[in-house]
């Protein structure tokens, strides 16, 4: 018996297990009742686990949602940054357009007001090789010829060195080979402006004894037969004595200080007067002189005959008297220096130097 059970152990266990389950099933079907205890235990065991799972799931999903939100926020941030960059570029473009329009308007206004016949041109490139020359988009077919002056509303810019059919080459004012006749506004000193290869230009051939002040303006003199007289060239920012007879006067060229994008070519130049240096006179308030105290302070002025101030005057007076026979007037020595009056706290001070204006 034992050997039979051992031999059919597997099938025996299967039958027993299946039979037990069938009985359980039959009991449930027959009695139409559940087995509440087992299900209750199962549910009681399952619910805590399900709670944990639900907690893990909700937290994980929440984390994923937050991560997703973060990713979306990063995407949105990236998109917004891209949008900002695009708008910034667009803004810059519009600003440039506006500045271009402003320059074109200023150029047009200057062109209309100037008595010279001017032709507007646009700078389209730099000449290679280190020279301070540019190309403009107007050429000989527009009436441009070599030697014509190139200006901006702020001053002279250069001159045409080569004219081609559709473009021209402009030698800028700052090039060392550039030269033009200039005149100062204040003392009317003539000189020759030369480029230095950098931002400032040098006015040559101004004698050392000629007074040139910093801030003074120089205009074209018309001597060079290229630039019409009366165009602004630049303002003095440095004056120093030269090695020989001429001083060195450095100007800041006015025609180039806003950059060079649009220029005017002087087709037919008309000379204009060089404007006077205008000093700005600001009103300076001074007080009334202080009242004289009694007794009066000793006279400060020496008692001298009228017209005799110096030894030469005295000699001249004696000479005149000798010729006419009258006694010569004697000079009276000046009185000792009177005691100085107490300084007034409201004494006027010298006016500050005013910057010259165009």
């Amino acid at each position, binding site marked *: 018996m034992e050997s039979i059970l051992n031999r059919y152990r597997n099938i025996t266990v299967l039958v027993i297990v299946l039979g037990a389950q069938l009985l359980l099933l039959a009991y*449930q079907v027959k009695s139409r009742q559940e087995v509440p205890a*087992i299900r209750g235990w199962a549910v009681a065991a399952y619910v805590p686990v399900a709670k944990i799972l639900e907690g893990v799931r909700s937290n994980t999903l929440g984390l994923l949602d937050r991560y997703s939100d973060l990713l979306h926020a990063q995407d949105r941030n990236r998109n917004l940054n891209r949008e900002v960059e695009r708008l910034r570029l667009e803004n810059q473009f519009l600003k440039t357009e506006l500045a271009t329009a402003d320059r074109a308007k200023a150029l047009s206004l200057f062109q209309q007001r100037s008595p010279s016949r001017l032709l507007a041109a646009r700078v389209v490139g730099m000449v290679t090789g280190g020279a301070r020359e540019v190309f403009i988009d107007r050429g000989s077919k527009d009436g441009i010829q070599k030697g014509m002056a190139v200006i901006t509303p702020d001053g002279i810019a250069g001159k045409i060195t080569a004219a081609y059919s559709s473009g021209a080459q402009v030698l800028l004012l700052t090039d060392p080979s550039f030269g033009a006749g200039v005149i100062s506004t204040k003392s009317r000193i003539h000189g020759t402006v030369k480029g230095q290869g950098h931002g400032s230009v040098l006015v040559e051939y101004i004698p050392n004894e000629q007074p040139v002040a910093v801030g003074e303006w120089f205009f074209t003199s018309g001597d060079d037969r290229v630039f019409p007289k009366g165009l602004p060239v630049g303002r003095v920012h440095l004056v120093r004595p030269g090695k020989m007879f001429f001083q060195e006067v450095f100007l800041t060229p006015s025609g180039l200080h806003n950059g060079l994008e649009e220029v005017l070519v002087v087709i037919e130049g008309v000379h204009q007067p060089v404007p006077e240096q205008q000093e700005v006179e600001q009103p300076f308030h001074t007080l009334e002189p202080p009242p004289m105290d009694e007794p009066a302070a000793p006279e400060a002025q020496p008692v001298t005959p009228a017209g005799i101030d110096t030894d030469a005057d005295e000699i001249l007076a004696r000479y005149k008297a000798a010729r006419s026979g009258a006694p010569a007037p004697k000079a009276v020595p000046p009185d000792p220096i009177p005691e100085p009056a107490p300084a007034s706290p409201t004494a006027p001070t010298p006016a500050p130097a005013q910057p010259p204006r165009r």
Partner: protein
Amino acid sequence: MTEFSDHLLGQRGRPRRRRIRPIAFLIAPLFAILFQVYAPRFAWQLGFLELPLLVTVYFALLRREPVTGLLIGCFVGLAQDVLSHNPLGVFGISKTLVGYFAASLSQRVDVENGAVRFMVASFFYFFHQFTFWVLVSSLLSQPFALGFLETLLYGVLNAAVAVPLYALLDRL
């Protein structure tokens, strides 16, 4: 086979029995049942997965003992019954049979190969569904539609899941 043939074949002739960690015995069926209860709540597409069956087949194949296999199937099936609307014993009987026959099969066939595992998993899915249909419709007289194409498709899908799942369980 006789003792002589066993002696001649040695250990290579008979498939080796693998040891299973007790924790894996506990965790894997529990996870499978919880997955079947929990996952379709959020992803109804996962409702076709019969993970308790696949786990039962895996442990039965691994243990290569029919008694162990049928007991594993019995416990997994009853646990599944507890959390289902069926009377206790429907899944239990089905999976008891699956465990028994899977373990019996593993005594004769080496089931380490992925293709074999695929075929075994799909076969026992069909067998399980058929048994379940018989029990429900015959014993309980409850309507249960067993669509052929649907069962075939789900069998293939379950087998496709079984192969990587078994590879994962091999590492436990």
